[in-house]
């Protein structure tokens, strides 16, 4: 499934969408950046409530296919511009991390 398709099915609002055709390759959830960096895999969609520039660094280093900010968390305009420039897909959702995981679990079946 492509990121664009996932966003539509999960009702995710784009904050930065430079590569909507990127393939989704699994999911990961967590808020401790080093933990995510050590455990998430390239191509994963990452659910988190963290939103700062370091989240973008982690997404870029691990080569994640998208970051989804849960609970209505959003990016500053500056960070959104930076995400776009770095080619990182970032979305926001009103759903909790748990609700996003449950939904992703259904879609992954």
């Amino acid at each position, binding site marked *: 499934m492509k990121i664009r398709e996932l966003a539509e099915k999960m009702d995710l609002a784009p904050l930065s969408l430079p590569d909507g055709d990127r393939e989704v390759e699994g999911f990961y959830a967590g808020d401790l*950046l080093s933990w995510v960096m050590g455990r998430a895999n390239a191509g994963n969609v990452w659910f988190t409530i963290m939103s700062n*520039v370091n989240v973008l660094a982690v997404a870029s280093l691990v080569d994640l296919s998208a970051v989804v900010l849960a609970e209505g968390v959003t990016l500053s305009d500056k960070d959104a511009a930076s995400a776009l420039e770095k080619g990182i897909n970032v979305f926001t959702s009103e759903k909790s991390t748990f609700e996003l995981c449950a939904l992703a679990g259904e879609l992954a079946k």
Partner: protein
Amino acid sequence: MAEAITFHYDVDGENFTSAGNASVQVKRKLRQLGFPPEIIKRVSIAMYEGEINMVIHASGGSADVTVTPEEVRIVLTDHGPGIADVALAMREGYSTAPDNIRSLGFGAGMGLPNMKRYTDTMEIDTEVGRGTTITMTVKVA
């Protein structure tokens, strides 16, 4: 053996938002040099963790990266407080990061363990009051 390529970066200890700049640049250079994605990931994550550590604990430092076809060597040097108990610092989940750092999503106590996990060798030379030098290598072959 082909000649080594070296890169030097100063890690700004005051600026948390620019932490990671050196590892992102190294990642880009290794990609240009045609290294496999898995190697690039290991090098850039180990280096990013090191950079963050220098910003959190040591008011910055420097990073020197030496690239040959056989290996990538990263040397991180700081003049921070040093590590009193290396074995404890290496334990997953142990962290001395302050609350304001934790609120940024760091301080999981995974930095040094991740650096070890993603590299083939890692040596820590540290002395309380003098600073810390960490040398890591990632074998390419």
